[in-house]
């Protein structure tokens, strides 16, 4: 029965199935969601609306890159949205109120978010605390500092250069920030797929003991992941500021869960070691399309939260079930 030809055919079909489940599943979900909303609202399938969706997605999308890295190592970063909000407040307060030159303000903001990544990573690797608890703690720390520093006030009248990422490219429908997001996805995809560091991120998430025994410095890989994630939240903060035109101390609250949702919807396993960053881009688009489509249909934002919650649970359930099958 089990001739070599039969077996190799079986292996090939297994591989094909893995590929389809890996990338095409989320893509199909995205297309279905688009088709559904297109039938519900005339405004959904317009260039203007797509441009809006992309602008909404660029913030979550960039956070989701960092979140993907963390989740690939079998961790999770609950602090992402709040750290981003703090970054946004630091940049805008310094640039608009303290008269710090914009490049310095940006450096300070990204520096603060990267510092939070470093703290998360150090607590996870040096003390061995669970990422869930560490980032739940830093979530609250970042939120509190944001409120204290901004005195819970939005920062407005920003220098023009701070919102440049929100302006259209050559007067078209796509803003610079979307281009930046896509470029970051390209870099992340390349690093994960084509560098040793990327393979080590997967190995650390999939089999930390095997990775260590293979001579990989697992703590260093983990730390690098949290630091890079922190830096990406800083970039997301710049995009958020550029899009809304204000420094908002209450930013990041929907993005926090949306980013995790995007990663999980994109097929990255919460058990670590499996998934792709391009899936997270599709996942972010799914989340964006849902929020946008439901808004166009006049569904109140509470229901959007409800639906996002259900989406997360569905995606995690699929992950759990497929994990059980392969184990």
């Amino acid at each position, binding site marked *: 029965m089990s001739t070599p030809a039969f077996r190799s055919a079986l292996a090939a079909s297994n591989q094909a199935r893995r590929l389809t489940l890996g990338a095409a599943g989320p893509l199909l979900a995205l297309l279905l969601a688009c088709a559904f909303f297109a039938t519900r609202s005339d405004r959904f399938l317009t260039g203007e609306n797509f441009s809006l969706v992309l602008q909404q997605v660029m913030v979550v999308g960039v956070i989701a890159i960092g979140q993907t890295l963390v989740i690939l190592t079998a961790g999770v970063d609950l602090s992402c949205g709040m750290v981003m909000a703090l970054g946004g407040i630091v940049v805008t307060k310094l640039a608009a109120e303290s008269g710090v030159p914009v490049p310095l303000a940006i450096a300070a903001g990204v520096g603060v978010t990267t510092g939070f990544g470093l703290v998360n990573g150090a607590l996870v690797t040096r003390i061995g605390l669970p990422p869930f608890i560490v980032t739940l703690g830093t979530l609250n720390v970042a939120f509190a500092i944001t409120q204290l520093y901004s005195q819970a006030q939005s920062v407005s009248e920003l220098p023009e250069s701070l919102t440049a990422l929100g302006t259209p490219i050559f007067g078209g429908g796509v803003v610079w920030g979307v281009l930046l997001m896509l470029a970051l996805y390209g870099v992340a995809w390349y690093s994960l797929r084509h560098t040793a560091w990327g393979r080590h991120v*997967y190995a650390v998430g999939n089999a930390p003991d*095997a990775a260590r025994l293979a001579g990989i410095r697992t703590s260093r890989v983990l730390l690098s992941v949290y630091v890079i994630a922190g830096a990406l939240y800083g970039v997301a903060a710049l995009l958020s500021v550029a899009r809304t035109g204000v420094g908002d101390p209450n930013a990041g609250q929907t993005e926090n869960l949306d980013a995790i949702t995007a990663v999980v919807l994109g097929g990255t396993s919460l058990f670590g070691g499996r998934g792709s960053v391009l899936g997270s881009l599709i996942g972010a688009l799914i989340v964006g399309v849902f929020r946008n489509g439901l808004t166009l249909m006049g569904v109140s934002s509470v229901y959007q939260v409800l639906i996002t919650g259900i989406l997360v649970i569905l995606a995690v359930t699929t992950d759990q079930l497929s994990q059980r099958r392969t184990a």
Partner: protein
Amino acid sequence: MSNEVILEATGLVKRYGHVTALDGMDFSLRAGEVLAVIGDNGAGKSSLIKALSGALVPDEGTIRVDGRAVDFRAPMDARRAGIETVYQELAVAPAMTIAENLFLGRELRRPGVAGRLLRMLDHTRMREESARYLQELEIGVRSMSQAVSTLSGGQRQAVAVARSAAFARHVVIMDEPTAALGVKEGSQVLALIRRVRDRGLGVVLISHNMPHVFEIADRIHVARLGRRVAVLNPRSVNMSDAVAVMTGARTPETLDPAVLA
């Protein structure tokens, strides 16, 4: 089999508080032989192996590779000296492909600018070399891009052995390589160990499985109470005497000197 000693240890001592795991353990491995290490629980087998593979630092004693004293502080040090270890169960990352597993921690980069500047991996070469390694060891796996989770237990162990054999310059240490396997897969791994030895490497085999030990070992190192009590010749000693020495029921002096190796 040559008589050249490639890995040697003398008087290894390791204490954990009041417990003495190694109590003056000696060890000697020649090129191109399979040396089985047997011993009851607590005989110091795994401490010995850990010391030889750099996973623990002994309190006293010396380890020599090719006659030169070495000081292993970490598994990487042993690996640099050409000693590779196959750890039971922990050896592979199941979600990653065979090629990725074989080259995990020592990935090959592309030549030229892509490799140097962009640090781009050479997936093709890693796949081809993996296929070559596995073919040399007669491990029948179709595709190097197959995830290890799709392999059977024996095939996984074969991949782990192949990785060590591919990169070892002197010694491959195997910790219970057949423990989790069925009869057929177990004998496949034994055949694989033989092929590794025939390439001139020294193989250290830790096993509880006496039939396997007698089938494949060239010499048997018997550990007891943290010391080497005897080195036996599996072709002249019988299994029950070996077990008797291992458990302390007989002292090596009471054996026929012809069974000592």
